[in-house]
Every structure is written in C-alpha cells, then in structure tokens.
C-alpha cells in the first residue's frame, strides 16, 4: 500500500488532542463570549475533524486524488450551506413576494 505508516505515538497523541478538544469545547460553551461562542465551537469542531481526517483516516499520507475528493466533499457542503444561508439571509430585500 502507499508506504508511509503513522506511528502508534502519533495515534495516541491525536486521541489525547481529540479528548482535550472535547473538554475544551464543553468548557468554552459555559463561558460568555457573546456572539463568539458559536464560531469558537465550530473552530474546535473543525480542528478535531481535521485531526481525524488527516491522521485516523490517513489523508496526511494519502494520494493527491484522495485529498482532492475529500476536499471536494467539504467544498460541496459549503456550497449547500453557504448558498442556502445566502438565500435565507437576503429574503425580503427586494420587497416583492418570493424575493
């Protein structure tokens, strides 16, 4: 297979980082950061997701094609979320029904 193996030590470190991230996001949720609470939670979640994808799912040492496909999935998701929220957020701007 594609050569590179990740060390056991790296796996354990990633595991600890994921656990720490979970504790962190729970703690942050109880702090009043105003509007920053949600972005903070999302940043931590995406950070944990990146660790899982890169190390547990081996994308760190994967082929370029694998990376493009994985990134493509995220890109398509962002199209779905971004354009839908764009529609929702701009409703009523033009002042006539349906717009």
């Amino acid at each position, binding site marked *: *297979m*594609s050569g590179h*193996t*990740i060390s*056991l030590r790296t*796996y*354990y470190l990633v*595991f600890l980082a*994921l*656990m720490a991230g*979970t504790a962190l*996001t*729970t703690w942050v*949720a*109880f*702090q*009043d*950061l105003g509007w920053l*609470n949600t972005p903070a*939670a*999302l940043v*931590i*979640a995406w950070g*944990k*997701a990146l660790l*899982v*994808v890169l*190390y*547990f*799912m*081996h994308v760190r040492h*994967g*082929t370029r*094609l*694998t990376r493009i*496909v*994985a990134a*493509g*999935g*995220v890109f*398509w*998701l962002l199209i*779905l*979320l971004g354009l*839908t*929220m764009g529609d*929702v*957020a701009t409703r009523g701007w033009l002042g006539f029904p349906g717009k």
Partner: protein
Amino acid sequence: MQAEAGAPARAHQFDTADQQKDASTLGMWLFLVTEIMFFGGMFCCYLVYRSFYPAAFAAGSHHLDILLGGLNTAVLIASSLTMVLAVNAAQAGKTQLIVVFLILTILLGGVFLGVKAVEWGHKFADHHVPGPSFHFEGANAREAQLFFSLYFAMTGMHALHMVIGIGLLTVLAVQARRGKFTAAYNTPVDLCGLYWHFVDLIWIFLFPLLYLIDRHAN
C-alpha cells in the same frame, strides 16, 4: 500473478497492487462524500431553523444531558482510536490483534448506542418527542419542537449508521479471526475504518451543535 494465500489476486485492470488499493480507497471516499452531503442536508436544515429561532433552539438544547452527550463523544473518539489500532495491527501482520481491536471498537460502539437509548428514553419521558404528546415548558414550545425533530432525525440517522458500522465490524472480526487479513492485504479493514471514522466525524459536529447551544446563559 498468483497472490499469496489469503490475499486476492490483482484484478487485471490494475498495474500494481498499490494502484488496486488506492482505487478501493478512492471508492470508499467517494461514498463518504455522498454521506457528507446526506448528513449535510440535515445540517443545512439545522442551520436555517436555528438562525430563525435561536432562543427556541437554545431552550431545547438545555434539555439535553451534557454529561451523557460528552461521555458519548469520548466513547466514540476512543472507538476511533481502537479502530485505527486495528488497521495498524493489520498493517503489521498481527492477525489476532486485529480481532482484539475490532471487538473493542464494537463494544465501544455498543456503549454509545446504549447511552443514546437512555437519552432517548429521557426524552420520551419528558414528552419532548415531536408529535401529539409533545409538551414543552416555555414561550417557544412550537419552535422547540423543530429543535427536537432535528435532534431525533440527526442522532437517529447517526445511530443507524453506527448500527450498520457495528454490523460491518462484526463481519470483519469473524474474517480476521479466520486469518483473512495480512500485512499484504487488509483493504477491508482499512475501508471499514474510514467509514467508522466518518461516523465519529458526524458526532464531533452533532455534539456542540445540539448539546452546547448558549450554555453560558443556563
């Protein structure tokens, strides 16, 4: 052309065994991309309705048990570790160790589902299940029902994926016990690992989005 015992021969369209492995991995990733969009649809629904009714979503979120949700998050992350250790064992050719780690992963997955069943039981008892018997204290009961609809839809779909994953892992464990996987051929373990990590990924987003809304105001 005849591969070693236990490893399938290289199919004719591939030049090398590595290329065959890469093609299998690509196939699983393409499936996972469809799953990203599948769950993405529900995340999109969540995004829209939370933006419409933030107070109702926060109120609904406060009725979810953070301890159980957090525990489940830890359990799933641990199961991802045991899964990756199973793949690692396969790469190292330690066939019986694969079985040990697969069984651990299955057990942790079972714990997750058990805790989820307890949580859902609480929701049934509290009358927070959308439908005729729904009852929610507070001004935004109607919108809170939206939150709980999403809660059950998303955690339910996630739980279904876990059940399927446990089924796959059970088949893998039986095959591993029979010595099917070696350092030269462990593609099914690898691919099921990718699926399992993906299910963990979904939960990594579900936990803060469902359980941790506006908790500082609690």
